[in-house]
């Protein structure tokens, strides 16, 4: 039976064996990367966020108390790291806004030049035409998600994409369950409006978007 996170933390505290710490890293790095990439929309920034998260986890392990789940504590640090990155990014942008035109979302827009986007990293399929359609769909959904306020976007990512419960999200984000519920509600409402032009009456749940 695999040791729990908390057991690994205890062992690492006693031995300072980086091999143990790396088990924890490997346990959670993919999930944190996925959250960071969806939140930040940029591969480099997401990789940096993952690494900084674990550096901070290492630095703050003495402060970790066992009355909280290690995973909740870890994801909270990851969330804060992503928010810090977003804030710095926002400052850099200096109130510039990148307009999103869904009609041109399929192309290589200027904002994604010179960097790996989530779409460039997306899974490919053998059929190029189908790949294009899927990529278009993914881009539309991701770009629509990016239109949401950060607080709503993160909650949607954590719940609808990463399957965290309301309770877990409230711990990660540091807010009440009621606020989580409200952010989900309004985030989905807004997303529905943004995606409305792409939903067809006949679209199924598994393929919510149809080709234009």
């Amino acid at each position: 039976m695999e040791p729990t996170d908390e057991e690994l933390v205890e062992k690492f505290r006693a031995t300072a064996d980086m091999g143990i710490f790396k088990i924890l890293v490997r346990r959670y790095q993919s999930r944190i990367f996925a959250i960071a990439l969806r939140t930040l929309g940029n591969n480099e920034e997401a990789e940096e966020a993952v690494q900084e998260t674990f550096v901070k986890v290492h630095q703050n392990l003495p402060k970790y108390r066992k009355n909280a789940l290690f995973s909740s504590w870890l994801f909270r640090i990851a969330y804060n790291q992503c928010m810090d990155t977003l804030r710095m990014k926002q400052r850099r942008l200096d109130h510039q806004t990148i307009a999103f035109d869904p009609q041109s979302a399929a192309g290589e827009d200027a904002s994604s030049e010179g960097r790996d986007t989530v779409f460039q990293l997306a899974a490919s399929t053998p059929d190029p035409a189908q790949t294009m359609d899927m990529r278009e769909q993914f881009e539309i959904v991701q770009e629509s998600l990016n239109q949401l306020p950060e607080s709503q976007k993160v909650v949607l990512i954590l719940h609808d994409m990463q399957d965290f419960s309301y309770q877990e999200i409230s711990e990660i984000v540091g807010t009440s369950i009621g606020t989580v519920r409200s952010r989900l509600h309004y985030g989905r409402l807004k997303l529905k409006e943004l995606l409305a032009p792409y939903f067809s009456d006949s679209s199924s749940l598994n393929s919510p978007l149809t080709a234009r």
Partner: protein
Amino acid sequence: MQDQDKLDCNQAAEMLDAFHDMELEMADVERVEAHLADCPACRRELEAIAKVVASLKALPEVPTRDFADAIEARILSQSPAAISPSDSHSEVQPEVVTAPVTGQSRPALSLVSNKDNVRSITTAPRRSRLLAVAAAAVLLVGVLAMSALAPKSPSEIASVPVAPVSDIQTASSSGSSEKSISPLSEDVVALYDEEGGNNVSDVGISTNEDGLYAIKM
């Protein structure tokens, strides 16, 4: 279900997301189900929520690489001391730096961080001022009596640390580069001479971490 338990569309709409996510309490689940049974508009709303959620879930998983080694390297480069095993739970002990206490004389002013030297920083200026005043007085006496008496080196007064002479002192010691080591010596007198005996106030004595030296005002 009693009438007061029935939801209107606005109330139901606020609960639909949690209903979809199975995060509603059982009592509310029953109320929403009862409403949905009679309300096609709210059923469509629930379908729309499901589509939005499905569109997010449909986004492809993003491939990632293993960061473990890079993270380890970053941690090691930032705080190598933190990796050493500890018998307590505090990994990083505050580093206590104690300056070595030796019998050697320390400079009058030094920017070091131990407590002993902090005290010396605060007390040294007072001592230096006294020395400077004394040196200036002796210098005046020496200059006035120079023609008749043998020069009395103020370095006797400024017997504290030996230090390089200042630029002014060197520049004023016309061609006497070999004399540039003593912090306060005949150079001061020579400088005074050059500036003229009646301009006493134009030459002063100051201190730095190397001891006393002459300055041109």
